[in-house]
């Protein structure tokens, strides 16, 4: 997907527009918006080829703040709309912006099927573990015990883990990043953009109004050093100060933390291209440390490309015109 060869290089400003951004001051969505604008400018894709589709929720106002084509749709249903766009126009760069309520509650079915089909859309799931726009109810990713207006006695349901769901749905690209980690987030967005099939990026996002500090022990300086496990393909799964801890498998197939300096050979090496390994699934279910980076990136034909090729082949090999089709094989003539 190239084009616009002679046009001037785009900058982040080219993706900003004159709409007033109406997120709460301090919301994590601002830094995500900035990162997306920065990444889009560098992809070499003409601006008119970007389409951002969203559902309903705070994050879903995103398309209004981007100077691209945008479609703010129905709660939870953006993946269907994005699929339709991509099937008709495989040349467009189609992005879905969604949240934990939008994607994992009302829209969970659509999300899983879009990933399963491997249609070439990029889904950015802003996970703030709360309903923002409807004022603070528990979401499918809220932690058990959390008290909210809809759960005064505390959340009783266990949470969904978006990355684990995506991997289980057979997603071919799954990554996680954090609103505040600009350069890392931008790398993940660029990787997602380069992927041919469906891509899901979970972005841990702070809602400073209804769930402030939900990821403080990941984003704070000390917490980051202690709790974040950065996934890099081919690198050992080490984390903590100076990477002194490492992840290993025990005899029961469970992930365990080992002293990486004492037992370096037990530490697992990250393989994002593994298709038959349980390790990405185990990583996706880890609460501490919090892995960020690409969990899986494997190649598989994207639905939109498969259909495009088939359509072209059928058109090229077509026998007979519309008149023949309308008459069918058993027509008769009345004089």
């Amino acid at each position, binding site marked *: 997907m190239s084009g616009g060869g002679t046009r001037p290089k785009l900058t982040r400003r080219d993706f900003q527009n004159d709409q007033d951004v109406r997120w709460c001051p301090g919301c994590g969505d601002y830094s995500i918006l900035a990162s997306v604008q920065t990444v889009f400018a560098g992809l070499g894709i003409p601006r008119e*080829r970007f389409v951002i589709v969203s559902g309903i929720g705070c994050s879903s106002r995103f398309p209004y703040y981007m100077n691209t084509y*945008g*479609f703010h749709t129905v709660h939870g249903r953006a*993946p269907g709309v994005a699929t*339709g*766009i991509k099937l008709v*126009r495989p040349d467009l760069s189609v992005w879905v912006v969604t949240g934990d309520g939008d994607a994992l509650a009302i829209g969970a079915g659509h999300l899983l099927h879009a990933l399963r089909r491997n249609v070439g859309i990029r889904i950015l799931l802003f996970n703030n573990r709360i309903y923002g726009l409807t004022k603070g109810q528990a979401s499918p990713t809220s932690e058990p015990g959390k008290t909210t207006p809809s759960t005064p006695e505390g959340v009783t349901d266990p949470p969904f883990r978006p990355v684990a769901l995506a991997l289980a749905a057979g997603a071919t690209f799954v990554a996680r990043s954090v609103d505040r980690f600009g350069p890392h987030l931008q790398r993940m967005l660029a990787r997602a953009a380069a992927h041919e099939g469906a891509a899901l990026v979970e972005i841990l996002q702070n809602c400073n109004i209804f769930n402030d500090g939900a990821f403080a022990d990941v984003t704070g300086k000390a917490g980051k050093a202690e709790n974040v496990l950065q996934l890099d393909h081919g690198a050992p799964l080490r984390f903590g100060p100076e990477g002194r801890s490492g992840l290993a498998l025990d005899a029961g197939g469970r992930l365990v933390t080992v002293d990486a300096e004492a037992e370096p050979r037990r530490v697992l090496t990250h393989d994002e291209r593994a298709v038959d390994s349980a390790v990405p699934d185990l990583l996706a279910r880890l609460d501490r440390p919090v892995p960020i980076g690409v969990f899986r990136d494997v190649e598989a034909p994207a639905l939109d490309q498969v259909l495009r090729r088939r359509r072209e082949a059928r058109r090229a090999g*077509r026998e007979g015109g519309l008149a023949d089709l309308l008459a069918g094989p058993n027509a008769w003539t009345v004089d």
Partner: protein
Amino acid sequence: MTSEPQSAGLSGPGDRPERVTVRIAGDSGDGIQVTGGRFAGSTALAGHDLATLPDFPAEIRAPTGTLAGVSGFQIQFSSTEVLTPGDRADVLVAFNPAALRVNLPGLRPGGVLIVNSSAFDDERGLRKASYERNPLEDGSLEGYRVHAIEIGKLTREALADSGLTARQVERCKNFFALGLLYWMFGRPLDPTLRWIERKFHDRPELARANGKALAAGYHFGDTARVFETPVELPPARLAPGVYRGLDGNEAISLALATIAERSGLDVLLASYPITPASTILHRSSRLEAFGVTTFQAEDEIGAIGAAIGASFAGGLGVTTTSGPGLALKGEFLGLAVMTELPLLVIDVQRGGPSTGLPTRTEQADLLLALFGRHGEAPLPVLAPRSPGDCFWVVLEAARIALRSMTPVVVLSEGYLANGSEPFRVPGEDELPEIRPRFLSDPAQFAGAYVRDPETLARPWVVPGTPGLEYRIGGLEKDPQGRVSYDPENHERMIAARAARIARIADDLPPAALEEGEPDDELVVVGWGGTWGAITEAVRAERAQDRRVASVHLRHLNPLPRGLGELLARFPRVLVAERNRGQLAMLLRGQLGVDVESFARIRGLPLRVDELRERIAASLSGGWS
């Protein structure tokens, strides 16, 4: 058209009837629909006009021999125009006791009854059909011309040396019965023999056996002498042209290919399987070469979402469904209304509410289609009148959707979806112009909702167009396309969206009488698939000098101009429909006309004789 369709002959030897209704019924595993389909094909080749109505159970394979498992196929054919599959059959072929019990009420008194007596020997079969005694022996069939023929046994004998298993032989008996029907109506065997060869090309032993059963049934006709000599109807005088058999769902998929071909748009049919709409998805999935892509979504909502996405991207999104699915699509229809995107939603209505009578026909989604959305969300609604008309109505729906930038709902019916009739294949010059109007010049773009002065449509700007990046969505916008919470703007936008739909009527033919004269005493108003029965009934009554006219609505929203004035000329207005009076309510509410309602809702097509009785009662003042 005769004034008395039910008086068709077949009452004695040497009859030369003008029209005949045949019903074939058996177990859902007996191949009834195949038999009916072949008989319809041979009827068309004989040059008759015809209409068919399959009638099958909701269960795929209900237990053998039970009342729940009975499958039927009815066909009316004639040497004159045929508008319905016939009220009651002149000839009924019943393969087993259950089929007899279910279908006997549909055979006219004195009608010909062909019974597979091989299936009546066995106590269990009789019991499953709740017969305490064998109806072939207890005199209960006295009012009919009964021919008890051992179809099962004769088929077994004909295929004694075929090497097939007993079960395979059993499954050939429908072709024996078909052969017998071919003898009765003087039809050639060759086209069906060739069809059998094609159908079973990789199972030559089955092709041979079925062909043999067909021939055996045919030759048995001489012995059975259901009629003295074969009954041969003269061909119908159809308008010259190329014809094909067409059911309503196939007509819709052909329309989608035609739209893609004529408009150059990529058509995306995004659907979720649901009876009785699914065959549209099946047939359309073979039309990629013609620009139709199909997408089987994860649910009804995902389906309409993908269709809306396709239209946003500059294709034409289409989704097909039935009532429960239309209910699920309601929220997205609101979005399509708000974002003013072209979209076709085709609802093949079935018996409701809920799962209701999924394989039966009904017209009870009219008010859902018109009003079943949140907020003020008007959209055009159209309904085809016959299987072949599904083709034309879908083209018309596409024309409106593209011209006025709006979702359009087409209300088909199970009756039209499965019924078939000869369809005159249009030449390319008879097909309407279907033209998308994209806007790609930034100099001409004043805003996402700045409207065309004539149609009030907003511009269709498609992603990929440089310099016109814009956002649409469910939030209210001002004409420039900016999110707006301004109360005045909201009211203006609602009015503009409604005016755009109302204005479509400028482009439609004004209301006109289908049958009759403006000074008649009664006008029957109908919509959708009741057209054949209403027309037949009105013509029959007029032939008896009753002063009755008819109006048939293809456009339910907006209604054709002049409809109120037209109806007001009649002392009496009778609305006939397959629901509890939904069109009647609409006409009272929108036009302020006083109407009587003839609303029957049994999952079956409107019957000509019932409607005639109602017309007569209305005219004699029995209903007021």
